């Protein structure tokens, strides 16, 4: 534990160092290099110490009668590993990518502090330090979002993010207040010992879901996420999407599984309902988007939904005493969190390289980059397949575990859950299928086809540091997909502590298969599938080239006999999504298309316009924004009154207060 705290202090010290060094040209290499070293060390430490007994430390900081408590238990270790691996790969990427930054002095001081804050949230063991670290994480990430502050949309993104982050902390503050009760002891041990009445527990759970969910991006609290994550530099986007959302999920798991004690079955309902809606609607948002980084941000929302579904299932199982099934669902949630960190980092790194090479984020103005950036295209493709839950990659392994969790759930006795869980299963399957469509579209529009603008034709492959970060993450996507048993076994202590159950030990299963409940129910062997597919493909290629033809002729593409159409005639990101838009978005987003056809004889081109409505914004946020704006305008008059009237107000306020006191007493 002291080692972890020293490392975190070291990261904070790096922030100071970054301010000192800010004007030096080498500062970015030094800061990112040191961040990489510290994060790798912390990651290794977390990986190794998950099986050890929890260690604690109390520092004389924070509230005077409380001190700052820190604790390293299996759950903290699991998330510490996720946070620090993501941080290490982002730092590695930034060693190369950071050179593109016009104003490094705006990034460097906040970056190590952001890493330190995320680590602190995970190890904090009292409400005060937790909320302090949580706020530090919000503020440093806000500062990183505001790096490119001269862009108009960045200012807006920062504004929305600040409001939503304050709301989230506010909700968590009250959640902890309810959980701790009136004793004033905010250490997690005291909170664990304190039991709530069902009504208060419900309120605390709602507040925890709102607080953690607003940071993680649960619909309808997601609005800031697709604005803020893409606005930051790409390595920070990767951290915010891949890692910070995991910290938010940590907060939910810590509160719902650990601090609140034994769950009631209905605690699973908010996680399941919001998770299902978030998974399906998040990916639909992503399909409608043409900005590459916003597509990735919306896809983060989808994956957060998937993790919440798994966590909700685990809560339902735990409440009903199915410890092993709860362990399955919880392990699936954590595994998917880890996986999402891996592939989302790769994808954001890829997007960052594309932006650095072309200056474009809009997929409608990219295309054909696979010829210019073949290696990063391959890494992006691997991550795309992984996030679409396709075997043999890691996304499939974790979603497969969630599906197995759903298949255990008919044993749940509550009728509400019996009816809800299959519907959640449909949403999950729908999200997985739509994610495949979304990433075919994102990959193809960016990397495939013919270049749509001149800037793309001048692009070159990105620098070796960035490539190295992308390739490491992509390789791990494959590795975690073909050897998922090791990850599941590694996560075992978390399930043992939190739900008192365990999955079958995967190391004892022959041939490195994974088994969720028992071998007769189902098993999956990614390694075998991968080697079979690879071997068959190679054999087929070898045999065909040896015994049949191996001649290749080059020619212009055929396109069914219409090769003369220009570059604009190829399918764009918007047109690739058109059938899905007509099927799904006409309901969810009220999507409409209008064709403006000029009259005969008029040489102007016809135009197609597409309209989408964001239902969450229109129905939830716009009324609030309108109410705030209107009341502000109304109250504005009060600023310009005569002194006589102000005195009148003071008098009235005094009288009202006295009356209240009189009634109260």
């Amino acid at each position: 534990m002291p080692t972890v705290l020293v490392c975190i202090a070291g990261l904070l010290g790096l922030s100071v160092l970054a301010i000192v060094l800010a004007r030096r040209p080498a500062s970015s290499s030094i800061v990112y290099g040191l961040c990489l070293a510290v994060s790798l060390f912390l990651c290794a430490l977390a990986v190794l110490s998950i099986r050890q007994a929890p260690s604690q430390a109390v520092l004389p900081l924070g509230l005077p009668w409380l001190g700052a408590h820190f604790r390293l238990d299996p759950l903290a270790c699991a998330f510490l590993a996720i946070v620090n691996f993501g941080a290490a790969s982002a730092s590695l990427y930034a060693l190369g990518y950071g050179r593109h930054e016009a104003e490094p002095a705006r990034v460097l001081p906040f970056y190590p502090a952001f890493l330190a804050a995320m680590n602190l949230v995970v190890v904090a063991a009292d409400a005060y330090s937790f909320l302090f670290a949580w706020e530090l994480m919000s503020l440093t990430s806000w500062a990183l979002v505001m790096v490119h502050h001269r862009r108009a949309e960045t200012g807006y993104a920062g504004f929305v993010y600040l409001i939503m982050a304050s709301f989230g902390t506010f909700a968590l503050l009250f959640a902890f207040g309810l959980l701790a009760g009136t004793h004033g002891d905010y250490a997690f041990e005291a909170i664990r010992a304190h039991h709530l009445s069902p009504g208060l527990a419900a309120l605390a759970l709602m507040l925890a879901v709102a607080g953690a969910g607003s940071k993680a991006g649960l619909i309808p609290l997601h609005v800031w996420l697709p604005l803020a994550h893409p606005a930051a530099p790409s390595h920070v986007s990767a951290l915010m999407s891949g890692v910070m959302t995991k910290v938010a999920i940590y907060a939910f798991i810590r509160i719902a599984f650990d601090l609140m004690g034994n769950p009631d079955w209905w605690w699973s309902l908010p996680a399941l309902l919001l998770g299902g809606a978030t998974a399906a609607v998040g990916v639909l948002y992503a399909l409608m988007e043409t900005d590459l980084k916003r597509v990735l941000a919306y896809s983060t929302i989808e994956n957060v939904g998937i993790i919440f579904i798994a966590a909700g299932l685990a809560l339902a199982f735990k409440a009903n005493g199915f410890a092993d099934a709860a362990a399955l669902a919880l392990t699936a949630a954590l595994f998917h969190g880890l996986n999402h960190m891996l592939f989302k980092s790769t994808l954001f790194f890829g997007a960052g390289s594309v932006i650095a090479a072309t200056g474009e984020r809009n997929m409608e103005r990219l295309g054909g980059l696979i010829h210019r950036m073949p290696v990063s295209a391959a890494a992006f493709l691997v991550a795309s397949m992984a996030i679409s839950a396709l075997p043999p990659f890691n996304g499939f392994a974790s979603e497969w575990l969630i599906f197995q969790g759903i298949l255990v759930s008919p044993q749940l006795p509550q009728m509400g859950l019996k009816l809800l869980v299959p519907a959640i299963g449909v949403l999950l399957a729908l999200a997985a299928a739509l994610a495949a469509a979304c990433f075919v579209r994102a990959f193809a529009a960016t990397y495939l086809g013919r270049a749509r603008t001149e800037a793309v034709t001048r692009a070159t492959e990105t620098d070796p540091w960035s490539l190295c970060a992308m390739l490491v993450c992509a390789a791990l996507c494959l590795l975690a997909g073909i050897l998922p048993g090791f990850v599941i076994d590694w996560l075992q202590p978390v399930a043992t502590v939190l739900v008192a159950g365990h999955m079958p030990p995967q190391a004892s299963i022959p041939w490195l298969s994974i088994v969720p409940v028992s071998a007769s129910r189902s098993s999956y062997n990614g390694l075998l599938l991968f080697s079979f597919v690879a071997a068959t493909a190679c054999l087929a290629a070898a045999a065909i080239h040896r015994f049949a033809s191996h001649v290749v002729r080059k020619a212009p593409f055929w396109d069914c006999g219409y090769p003369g159409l220009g570059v604009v005639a190829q399918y764009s990101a918007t047109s690739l999504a058109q059938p899905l838009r007509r099927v799904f978005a006409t309901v969810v987003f009220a999507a409409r298309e209008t064709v403006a056809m000029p009259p005969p004889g008029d040489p102007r081109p016809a135009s197609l316009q597409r309209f989408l409505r964001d239902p969450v914004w229109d129905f939830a946020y716009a009324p609030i924004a309108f109410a705030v704006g209107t009341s502000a305008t109304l109250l504005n008059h009060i600023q310009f009154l005569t002194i006589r009237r102000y005195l009148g107000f003071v008098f009235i306020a005094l009288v009202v207060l006295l009356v209240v006191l009189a009634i109260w007493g």
Partner: protein
Amino acid sequence: MGMIAALAAQLGQMLLVLALAPALTGLTRKMKARLQRRIGPSIFQPYRDLRRLFGKDVVLADNSSWLFRTAPYLVFAATWVAAALVPTFQAGLLFSWAGDLIAIVALLGAARFVQAVAALDTGTSFGGIGVSREMMIASLAEPAMIMVVFTVALVAGSTQLSTIAAFMADMAGLRVSLAMALVALVIVALAENTRIPVDNPSTHLEVTMVHEAMVLEYSGRHLALIEWASSLKLLLYISVIACIFFPFGLVTGAAGLSAYAISLLAYLLKVIVASLLLATLETVIAKMRVFRVPNLLGIALMLGLLGTLLLFVSGGM
């Protein structure tokens, strides 16, 4: 010895599906032609087509990348491995535990993903049409398929196809949820194999085509592999339906040669019947408009969900 026999059975199964797949396509075409009072090409025409295509040069578009050239091999390999995991004449094969029904569906999804990105590689408009429609169909067909898997898995208590087949072979009586799953699975199979009413496998040069538009730029050995993979996929779906709903004659444990012969014959018979039914269906109904397809697949999805719900409410027994 037992290991060698098991390995032989596994290898035999892999080669059987590979060898049988083109014949299935040929048979379906032949029957369709006979139903339409044409003589039609021989059942073995697909083999001749494959041989001819394998011998031809590949014509690559100037602006195609490495992805375009590797995709056919990956599609073929993924489809073949998926097909080899489905029990045809024997359940419980050596590697049958490597992937359950969800993994098989996902392997086909992986093949589709690779096929789709390869189709967009040259940046032609027909590739785009094909992919955008294929992804729309898949986005509904896949959840429907997962719901079918849920229904069947809840009845049989497993997602392993071999276990399901063994369970179904012993099960007496009918179940409403299984009937729903069968209808849903047939609709999904039609959609996934781009058969009428979702897509017409024998048209070209038509703005309504889906799968054919995706493979339009392929030629020579690449095209041969893709054609073979689509035959394999059709055989795979027929085998899945046969092994879940009609597991007669399937060898489930150790058995003598005569049992193998019977099960092989039974399997061939099932494939022929399925092919006849498919040909009849394709002859008597017309192709749907593209944007009517979601309604059909929505029916499949709802049937699958209803089946699963029924089982959930009755406690998964």
